[in-house]
């Protein structure tokens, strides 16, 4: 999940932390808190919960790091903690009635809107009009993404987390590669239709 150089650096940071150098832990937070947040966001679909989970992730890591033996890479370990905590949080939210209710079975072949509803995807930032359109699009995309069925959203979000590839995502979600490929496609197609792109 990360290249040799960065995992070496992680190992060094962990060693330093084990030797009592607190700044090393803070470096790990600086380096990876964003990814923990993004993974949690993929599961939970909202920023507040994602931040809460990201914090929990590092509280746990801080506690467990002295015993971390480095059998797996730090990032792999951290991603799993983030995913588990986010799923717990999701289950908890759901048990309290906060679940989303979007059909997973809607057809997504795109055949119903292939003609007429698209507009050209313009280069960003050329004119104030285009800028406004893009800002608006960004807002809409965010809102629609949060409304996606969670399996699609998870896959698409994880695809856009730095340095995660299909194999990493399949590993994290415990799915086959083909399933991931299909979910990412469905998420994209669903969003494209909803935003009439």
């Amino acid at each position, binding site marked *: 999940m990360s290249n040799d150089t960065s995992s070496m650096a992680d190992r060094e940071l962990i060693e330093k932390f084990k030797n*009592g150098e*607190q700044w090393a*832990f*803070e470096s790990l*937070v*600086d380096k990876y*808190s*964003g990814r923990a*947040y993004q993974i949690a*966001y993929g599961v939970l679909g909202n*920023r*507040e919960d994602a*931040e*809460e989970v*990201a*914090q*929990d992730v*590092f*509280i*746990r890591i*801080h*506690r467990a790091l*002295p*015993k971390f033996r480095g059998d797996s890479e730090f990032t792999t370990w951290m991603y799993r903690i983030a995913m588990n*905590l986010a799923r*717990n*949080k999701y*289950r*908890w939210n759901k*048990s*309290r009635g906060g679940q989303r209710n979007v059909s997973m079975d809607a057809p*997504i*072949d*795109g*055949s119903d809107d*292939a*003609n007429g509803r*698209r507009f050209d*995807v313009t280069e960003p930032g050329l004119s104030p009009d285009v800028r406004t359109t893009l800002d608006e*699009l*960004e807002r809409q*995309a*965010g809102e629609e*993404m949060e409304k996606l069925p969670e399996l699609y959203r998870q896959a*698409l*979000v994880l*695809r*856009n*987390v730095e340095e995660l590839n*299909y194999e990493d995502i399949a590993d994290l979600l415990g799915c086959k590669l083909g399933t991931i*490929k*299909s979910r*990412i*496609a*469905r998420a*994209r*197609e669903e*969003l*494209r239709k909803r935003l009439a*792109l």
Partner: protein
Amino acid sequence: MTHAPLHDPCPDAEQISACVDGRGSPEAREHLLDCPQCRQTAEAYRLLDTLVRKRLAPPHDLAQRIRNGVARAAAQRPVPQQAWFLLPGVRLAAAVALTLGALTVLIVALRPNTPEATLAVAPPLERPATVHPPVSAIPDPANTMTRVDVGNLRPARETQVVGSGLARALPAEFRHVWNVEDVDGSARLLQGIVGERDVIEGVEQGNRTFTMVLPDRDVQQLVDRLAAERWELLSPEGAQPRKGANVAFSGRKVTYRLVLAGR
């Protein structure tokens, strides 16, 4: 997607999406070169990825907030995980203190010198060994930044008031491991019983955990109820089933952490 007359049939959304990620089949990739319609779909997917990434951008001060949260949690964690007793200068004192049977006092006294405490931005939660902290010092699970460290409530022994046959108060925080037949079913039951109260769910060594802050009386009732459901309590600390008569209740909030272990 329409069938452009000059090309093979258009690939499906999955193929186009795979092309965007550099994983399309050679046929699909080739098709995209020639078919404006499919290329436009691929461009839309790329744009969506860009928009998703923008949406995913963490708050700019996330790392700082997390560092503060970790520091607070560490400060609230009375027994450090690190081998603080191996720190220079501590071992001798520890040996002396152990001889005197005053380990608990030592732990409290040394906490500001532990590695975790040096990270703290908030003053460490000092407390005498046998006196409960004020209610205001009990972390509120509903608050993101002062949330209790759900993974590490220590056993209650250090803070438990030592009674002498008299009723004693419950510790301000304690942890129970319950042995249950069906973990998921038991978790649902628990959520049903505790209802709308704030419960933080977590995982500890693969076991589901539930942390809640309840008035002492409610914790006792909960423990009685769970025992009546044939859950088996493995922990000797804190509220014990059907032993409410031995507890001095004051309505004080107690942080109760429950670990579900399957049989």
